C-alpha cells in the first residue's frame, strides 16, 4: 500500500528513503518473465542488476521505466507510485537501453533539444547543458552532424547525453558499455560515478562482471525472473557459501547455476 503526504512517504508501512522499491512484480509473456520480484535500491547508490540471458533484467527495468505494463505488483520511484502517477515518476528518471534511442536524421544537438523539450527543461539551461555534455563526451566537433553516419559507440554517447540532459534523480541503463571502446567506456564509467557522487541513483545491467564488481555499491542477481540474491559483494559471497570463490564471477556462476540448469547460463 502506498500512502503519500506532503511530509513523508510510506510504502507498505515503511518510511521511504529509497530511490526505487519494487514489490511483488509479475509479468508473463508466453511464459513467466518476472515472478514476484522484490527489489530495493537506495537513494545515491550505484546498483548493478546481473543475470544470465533471458533472466528478466530488461523486462524488470522496462516495467520500472513504465514501458511495459506489469501484470501485478507495485513500483515506487522516490515515493511516487509509478503505476498511479506515471508522469511524476517519469519526470524523475531516465532510461537508456542497449540500443541507442536516437534519430539518425537529427544531429546530437537537435536530439538533445528534443529530449530537453520532452522533459520541459528551460531552453537556455538545456542548451548550455547540452553543449557541456557533448564536450564532456568528446562530441563537440560532431554536435551538428547528423547521427546517421555515427559509429555505435558515438550513438551510445549521444543517447547517454540525452539521458542526462534533464538531471534525472534515477538513471536506469541497460548494458551501457556495449559497443564502446576502452576510452569511451572509461569516460562513461567516470560520468556515472560522478553522478552517483553528486547524489543521483544509477541502476545498470551488464554482462561484464568486472564492471559491476568495481563500480557497484550493491548488486542484485536475477534468474528466471526471480531475485536470487542482493547485497554488497561481501554479502553475496556470504550467501553463495565458502565454495563459491572470491570473485563476483565465481559468486554469480554459483548462484545462477543453482537456479538455472547447467548449460543455460550464458
Amino acid at each position, binding site marked *: 500500500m502506498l500512502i503519500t503526504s506532503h511530509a513523508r512517504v510510506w510504502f507498505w508501512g515503511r518510511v521511504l528513503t529509497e530511490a526505487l522499491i519494487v514489490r511483488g512484480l509479475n509479468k508473463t509473456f508466453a511464459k513467466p518473465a518476472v515472478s514476484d520480484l522484490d527489489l530495493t535500491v537506495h537513494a545515491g547508490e550505484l546498483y548493478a542488476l546481473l543475470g544470465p540471458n533471458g533472466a528478466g533484467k530488461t523486462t524488470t527495468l522496462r516495467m520500472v521505466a513504465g514501458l511495459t505494463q506489469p501484470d501485478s505488483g507495485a513500483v515506487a520511484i522516490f515515493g511516487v507510485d509509478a503505476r498511479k502517477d506515471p508522469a511524476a515518476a517519469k519526470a524523475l528518471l*531516465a532510461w537508456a537501453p542497449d540500443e541507442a534511442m536516437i534519430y539518425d536524421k537529427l544531429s546530437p544537438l537537435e536530439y538533445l533539444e528534443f529530449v530537453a523539450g520532452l522533459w520541459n527543461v528551460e531552453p537556455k539551461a538545456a542548451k548550455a547543458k547540452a553543449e557541456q555534455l557533448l564536450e564532456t563526451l568528446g562530441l563537440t*566537433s560532431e554536435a551538428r552532424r547528423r547521427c546517421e553516419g555515427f559509429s555505435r559507440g558515438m550513438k551510445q554517447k549521444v543517447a547517454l547525453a540525452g539521458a542526462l540532459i534533464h538531471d534525472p534523480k534515477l538513471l536506469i541503463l541497460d548494458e551501457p558499455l556495449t559497443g564502446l571502446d576502452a576510452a569511451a567506456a572509461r569516460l562513461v564509467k567516470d560520468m556515472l560515478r560522478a553522478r552517483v557522487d553528486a547524489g543521483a541513483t544509477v541502476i545498470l545491467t551488464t554482462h561484464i562482471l568486472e564492471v559491476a564488481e568495481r563500480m557497484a555499491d550493491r548488486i542484485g542477481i536475477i534468474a528466471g525472473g526471480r531475485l536470487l540474491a542482493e547485497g554488497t559483494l561481501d554479502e553475496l559471497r556470504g550467501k553463495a557459501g565458502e565454495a563459491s570463490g572470491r570473485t563476483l564471477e565465481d559468486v554469480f556462476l554459483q548462484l545462477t547455476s543453482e537456479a538455472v540448469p547447467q548449460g543455460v547460463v550464458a
Partner: protein
Amino acid sequence: MSLPFKPASTAWLLAHELRLAWRGFLAGRKGRGPGALIAFVILGGLIVFGGVAMGLALRGQQVPVVPLAVVIVDLALAVILTLMLSSTLAASADALYERGDLDLLFSSPLAPRKVLFVRALGLAVNAGLWFMVPAVLLLTPSIVLGHPAWLGVFVVLAAAALGASGVGLLLAMALFALIGPRRTRTVAQVMAALIGAAFFLASQYRNLMGQKASESLFARIATDAREGRIQPPPFADLPLRAALGEPIPLLILVALGAGIFLFAAQTLGRRFADAAAATQGAETRKSAKGPTRAFAAGPFHATVRKELRLISRDAALLSQVLLRVLYMLPLALVLARGAAHMPVWALAGPAAAVTFLAGQVAGSLVWITVSAEDTPDLLAIAPAPMGVLRQAKLTAALLPVALLLAIPIAVLAWYAPLAGLWTAIGAGLSAWSTGLIGVWRQKPGKRADFRRRRGASLLATLAELFVATLIGVATALAVAGWLVWALPPLIVAGAVMMALRRTDEQIAAALRVAS
C-alpha cells in the same frame, strides 16, 4: 528449409531473394485482418468482370493496326514505362543505401554482377507486377475467348519492366558518379517523382500554359490520329504488333528490354558494389555553420521542430509530396487563372480537386509523423502527455500543407474572395480530417520500414479518400453558391469521422495490441 538449387548459383540466389520477399510480404500482412483481402478480391472481381465484358464484346473481332490504335498503344506503353522507370530509379538509389544483407553478399565469393543481376531482377519483378496483375485479370477472359495471341501483352509488360529496371539502375549509377553518394538518393527520389508525373504534366500542358483549358494533349493526339493528321513514324507500330502476338516485333521488344537489363547488370556489377560500399555514412551532412539556434521550449514546440526537421530530411517522403504537388499544380493554376475571368461556378471543380489533394498530402504526412517513430520508447518514458505529443505531430504534418496551399488560395481570394474563403475552409477541413484519421488509426513502425513497405491500414486509406472526396464535393457546392447542398456531404463526412474516432485510451490499447 533448404533451397533446391546448387548453392551460390544464380537460381539459388534468386530463390533466396524470393523467399525473403515472400516472408516480408507475410510479415507485412500479419495483424491486418481480412479487410484488405476482401477489398482486393472485390477489386479483382470487378476487373475480371470488365475483362469478361470486353472479351465477349471483342469476340471474333481483330484489332486493326491503324494509326489511332498505334498511337493509343504507344502512349499507353510510354505512360507505363515512365511509371516503371520512376519506381525502379527510386528503388535502385535506395538499394545503394539499404545495408541489409548487401555487405554479406558483396563480402562473399559471389560475383558482384550475379548479386546485382538478382537484385535488379527483383526491381523488375516489383515494377512489373503492378501492371501485370491487373493486365492478367483484365485480358485473360479475352485470351480464353478467342484471342490467345494477346498473351503477347504480358511479354511486352515483362520486357518493359526489364528495360525500365536497367535504365533505372544506369540512371542511379550515373547520378552517383555525377553528384556523389551524399546527394544521389535525394536527387533520384526527386527525379523519380518528376518522371512519374511527366505524362500527367504533359497532358496538362494547355492548363499550365494558359491556353484552352478543356483540351488535353492526349485527346488532341487521339483526334489528330483518328482524322489522319498524324502518321506514326516507322517502327512505332512495334508495341501494338508485339501486344497482338506477332513473333518478330515481340522478339525485338524482348531483346531490347532484356538487352538493356543485361547490359546494366553486367557492366555495373563491380561498380555497384563499390558505390554501395561508398554510401556507408556518406549521407552524413557536414556540420552546419553559424550560431546554434535557441532550444525549443516544452514538449509541444520541441516535437513540432523535430518532426519538421525529419520531414525535410526524408527524401522519399519529399518525393511523394512533390509528386502530389505536381498533380496539384495544373489545378491550382486553373483555379488562380480562372478566378480573374471565369464565372464563380466554374471554379467549383478545381476548388474541389485542391481540397481533395490537400487531404491526401496531409494524410501522407500525418501517416509518417504519427506512425513512423524511430524511438517510441523515448516518447513513452517522457513525462509529456501523449496527447500533447500527438497534437505536435499533427501540427507538424499540417504546416507544410498550409504552406503549399497558401499561394494558390491567396491568389484565388484576391480575385474571388468568397470562392477563396470556401476553398481555404474546405482544404483546411480536409487536411485536418485526414490528419485525425491518421492519428486515430495509426500503426507504429520505424521510418526505414515505412520506406520499404508503406503498410498503411486499408480502412484508414479508404476512409481518408472518402472523407476528402466528400469535403471536396461540399467545397465545390459552396463555391458554386449552393450552400445548403454542401451540408449533406459534410454530415456524411462527419458521421464517418465519428465512426472512426478513437479515444486516447482506445489508441493506447490498439498500439499495445499492435506491438
